[in-house]
């Protein structure tokens, strides 16, 4: 950590998240290899990105829980013109719908961009970027998602 308390950029120069008090449990979880998300004890629904109250029922009974880290590609784009030169193109940005029903932005790795399809099963693949920050990227699922036997083995 630098003197300012800010995490320096990754060796590649990619700008890394600066966790806040609100988001720290999420980023600490990633560092420890667990994908953490807020869940409402009152209505049982999930909230992401982190918020101070439940965005579904407005209760303040949010708690941090562990996600299974598996889901499907909800939408995706392959970026050829990056916002800054530190990103190596092409890379895949995706929205993943987790098996628990919540969505997050991420990068898909370990797959050719042209092979990415909506609904493709994926699983979290933690990428350590610094002592403080590990990014929850995703890759094609090795195991099929729960409750969908027909895609078994279809993970190429």
């Amino acid at each position, binding site marked *: 950590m630098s003197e300012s308390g800010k995490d320096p950029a990754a060796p590649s120069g990619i700008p890394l998240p600066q966790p806040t008090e609100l988001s720290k449990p999420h980023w600490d979880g990633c560092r420890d290899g667990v994908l953490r998300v807020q869940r409402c004890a009152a209505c049982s629904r999930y909230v*992401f990105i982190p918020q101070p109250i439940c965005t579904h029922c407005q209760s303040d009974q949010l708690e941090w829980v562990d996600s299974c880290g598996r889901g499907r590609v909800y*939408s*995706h784009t392959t*970026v050829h013109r990056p916002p800054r030169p530190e990103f190596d193109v092409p890379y895949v*940005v995706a*929205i993943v719908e987790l098996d628990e029903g919540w*969505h*997050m932005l991420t990068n898909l790795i370990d797959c050719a961009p042209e092979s990415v399809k909506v609904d493709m099963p994926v699983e979290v693949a933690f990428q350590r970027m610094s002592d403080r920050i590990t990014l929850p990227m995703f890759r094609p699922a090795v195991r099929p998602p729960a409750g969908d036997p027909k895609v078994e083995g279809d993970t190429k």
Partner: protein
Amino acid sequence: MMSRSPFHDVAIVGAYNTVQARTADRPEMELLLDAMRGAVASAGLEFADVDGLNVTSSVQRYHSRQAVALLGGRPCWTGVDIGIPAVIEAAFAISAGLADVVLIATAQAREYTDRVKTAPWTRPSNEFVECWGLYTAAEFALIARRHMHLYGTRPESLAEVASAIRSNGARNPAALHYGREVSPEDVLNSRMVADPFHLLDCAVTCEGGAGLVMTSVERARDLDVQPVYVHGGGIERQGMAYMAPPVWDRYGHSGRTAARKAFQQAGLTPADVDVAEFYDPFSFEIIRQLEAFEFCAEGEGGEFVMDGRIRIDGELPIVTNGGLLSFSHAGMAQLLQKPIAAVQQLRGELPPVLTVPGAKLALASNGGAGALFCDVVLLGTEQP
């Protein structure tokens, strides 16, 4: 039947754009003063008539209270919003008697200097977006890709939108890309930026300013200009832009509530619209807005845009000045340029080749699904 909207007592009487250029070679303040003077002059008014101000600039962060001082410190109402919400805010102020003549003006110069990166306004910096290499093109691409998956929307439809808009800009001498005709094939053959968006599916980057003057319908009658009347408006926000993932199921219909409210105030429907000055940061956003505003059914936007329907001589001409894809995208000025385009179209101030004969009602919009906001205003040649 709802009661009469107070917006119906308000008219736009002045609309003006400064030069728009990739680099204007003019200081931001000079562009801003040009926008202010040009807008007031186009209304047939003088600064002495203005008693309401909403003045902003992107880089120097010039604001309305500073602008009041330019008018000698005379007591003025000041507005705080930008783009179409600034127009709606001013309409409230005028209808409530807080101001008689409101000048809205904005300008941007020298904001985009580091050309190795994409433009600063495309790059959000928060912890849940920046690390993924996400920026506006990718945000809107994620919305477009989901629509293509759900409804089979084809790249050819996106290319037709971009070509139709860019063809308008090619015929507008005031547009950045004046003279640059672009066919659908040109769009599909341009380099990929963030699929499905090719380079020519994306907005230009530009410098420039814009200004607009509003007053009461009563005052407008005394002016030597053709007033354009406010028929209705709506403002819609669903959270901060570029933080939460742009999930189609939640944000795909962004602007529907705003549009419904605007049409309800006007007592009109999308079928009454002669010209649509849609916000066009990326080609797909037109297809989405056609569905969100209920010009066509869910999933049918991709087919709606084909066969020349949205071209200048088509059934529903869109983005008649060339828009963000060809005319200009200048910091925040492009937001205000949507109602300005509607006013110029309805007044017959665009080049004849871009003037839609007999157009009486125009819709203008700001924002889009990727940005989690969408605003609408309906403007017409006759008082509602």
